[in-house]
């Protein structure tokens, strides 16, 4: 047993981790009762006079960040389209940029961004198209863009292959065919990898099937987190970057309308993330590569980089929570409301 001196024992509040153990070992109930010294034991019990809700204090002004989680929800960047030799070519320009953003009310984070936002723009194409992404590095650090999908090594966006790391001020063009259909992601692949991703260099990349999907209210939810004090674990968790953003202002959806959620987990420093919806169930399409759902459920778990399409309808009006079922993530920012209206 760890030796602790008498004063250390006495000043346990600030010093001794072993105090609870000692407290339990030494029979002393009589002392407490006789002295009445710790009224909590006898008097206060577990009465809590104040009501208590988890949540951040204050709110984040989207004008300061230059992006709004509510806008990110339904903001699909389809690029510019042109025809080249009978083929549809879709083009984007993405600029890496160092930018301080507010990730929870009052908490600033020195982020690395694609096009000044975290997550980066949700790129959307249709299978079979030729995609051309011009990447400009306006950051002070070397970066790349690595796309999930099927393409040549030359355009994989990893250091040492093809154009490799793009130095500050430099640029390159990634070109490949949109395949397979589904919900993918892109992120920086420079090393150290965890840092380049955790600082905000990621975004969603959707390839629609040629024949399209049924009409729906489509929502982008990117599960992310922020290690604000560089201890390799996140202090803040969110969907679409700002903690509790959809608690403060719920996501409005229509009753009985089909809602399609594009869900991506890009969390660093934690092995899994999860998604749970209250008072409802959804169809799950893993990676969106199949047109048949694999399950009907209300909770799913995603590893790092994993993504799913979730489809559901809300039969009743009202406010319904959705959040990570990892309670820690939920209470550190990853929770929100759907507000179902007629």
């Amino acid at each position: 047993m760890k030796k602790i001196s008498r004063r250390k024992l006495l000043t346990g509040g600030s010093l001794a981790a072993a105090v609870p153990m000692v407290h339990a070992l030494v029979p002393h109930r009589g002392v407490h009762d006789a002295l009445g010294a710790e009224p909590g034991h006898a008097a206060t019990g577990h009465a809590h006079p104040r009501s208590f809700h988890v949540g951040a204090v204050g709110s984040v002004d989207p004008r300061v960040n230059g992006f709004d989680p509510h806008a990110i929800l339904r903001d699909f960047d389809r690029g510019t389209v042109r025809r080249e030799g009978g083929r549809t070519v879709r083009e984007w320009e993405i600029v890496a940029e160092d930018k301080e953003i507010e990730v929870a009310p009052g908490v600033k984070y020195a982020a690395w961004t694609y096009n000044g936002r975290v997550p980066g723009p949700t790129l959307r194409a249709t299978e079979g198209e030729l995609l051309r992404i011009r990447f400009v590095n306006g950051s002070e650090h070397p970066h790349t863009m690595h796309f999930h999908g099927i393409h040549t090594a030359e355009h994989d966006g990893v250091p040492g292959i093809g154009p490799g790391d793009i130095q500050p001020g430099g640029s390159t063009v990634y070109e490949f065919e949109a395949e397979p259909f589904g919900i993918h992601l892109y992120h920086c692949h420079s090393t150290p990898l965890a840092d380049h991703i955790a600082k905000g260099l990621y975004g969603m990349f959707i390839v629609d099937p040629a024949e399209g999907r049924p009409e729906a209210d489509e929502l982008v939810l990117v599960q992310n987190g922020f290690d604000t004090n560089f201890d390799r674990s996140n202090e803040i968790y969110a969907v679409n970057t700002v903690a509790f953003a959809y608690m403060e202002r719920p996501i409005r959806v229509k009753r009985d309308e089909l809602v399609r959620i594009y869900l991506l987990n890009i969390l660093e420093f934690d092995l899994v993330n999860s998604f749970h919806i209250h008072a409802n169930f959804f169809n799950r399409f893993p990676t969106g590569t199949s047109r048949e759902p694999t399950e009907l459920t209300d909770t799913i778990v995603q590893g790092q980089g994993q993504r799913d399409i979730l489809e559901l309808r809300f039969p009743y009006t009202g406010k319904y929570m959705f959040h990570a079922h990892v309670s820690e993530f939920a209470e550190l920012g990853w929770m929100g409301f759907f507000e179902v209206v007629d």
Partner: protein
Amino acid sequence: MEPTATTAAPGVRRMPAWLAGLLPLGVLAVAIVAFVLLDAPGLERSGVPVEDVAVERTELHPGEIELQLRNVGPDTVTIAQAIVNDAFVPFETDDPELGRLEASTVDIPFPWIEGEAYEVALLTATGGAIAAPIEVAAETPGADVGFYGLMALIGLYVGIIPVAIGMLWLPWIRRIDPRWIRFLLALTVGLLAFLGIDALLEGTEIAATGAEAFGGAGLVWLGALVAYLALAGIDSGMRARERRARAAGAGGFTLALLVAVGIGLHNLGEGLAIGSAYAVGSLALGASLIVGFALHNTTEGLAIVAPVAERAPPLRRLALLGLVAGAPAIVGAWIGASAFNAGLAAFLFGLGAGAIAQVVVQIAPSLRDTAGRLFNPLAVGGLLTGLALMYATGLLISV
């Protein structure tokens, strides 16, 4: 005539004394201004702000956690969010922005549960985390009359009563061989040495939990030096008075008083620890611990009466000695309960250690045998016995 007046050359007006005194300051000011104007390196701090906020006190009230903060870093810190057990929680503060050395209070309404541990943290505007862990949640006692009465009672049990019991050895000491007095004095030195080392270690440890800006562990040594010098001054003054009163005074009472003062300062630190532990609600004291303390401190009474064995002072004086040694435990408990601060605690432990060092220096000559040897077998035996005794009784209150 002043000799310097003649050295002034005729016709040269002498500089006034006040100007001569200010001249170096003026030169220094010019040098600093020049340094700044020349844009000397290292003047402008750059990079991420250094955030260092000390949690000076944590209070628990029903449904509420209250943190008292002090910014001890060089940069202004803004408190942005509060986290308890990995959950953002609401909080209120009188001033979220803390300048250097500024203090602030953060109130967190939280349904804490008696006896459980909590990880409390504050997030700053830059995303830094200020940790304020709570090892065992218990309500912070209200500082009312009853509470101070309780502190006095504990101080009495831990401080005064054991010392008084130890002093009951006086009649026995008076009857034993004078050579054994020397042994007992050596034993006293051993006891004191143990307490002194203990105080230094504890002070350093407590200082580490507090604000470095106020001196950290340096406060312990500063306290020790202050106590040593003050007591040495008081001692020489008292001796002078005693010499005037009695030409051949052995100074037994003076020595006993010094021992009592040293022990008293030590007990002050001990009381402080008890009071602060109560204040943060983490006092893990069982009855067995109070008994252990009492036994441990009983030996202090023996240390006080050993120097006065030859000429026993009147009861009134003995009572005074007992109070000087024991009562500070009560005062310490009050201070600790109402205004605990790691820096203050470190300084008080330092005071105790310095006082003890001074007393040891005072007693040391009395350990010499007839041949003038300091480390004679009897003295060394006493020293070791004293250390062993303290160590052994210390085990009673250590786990």
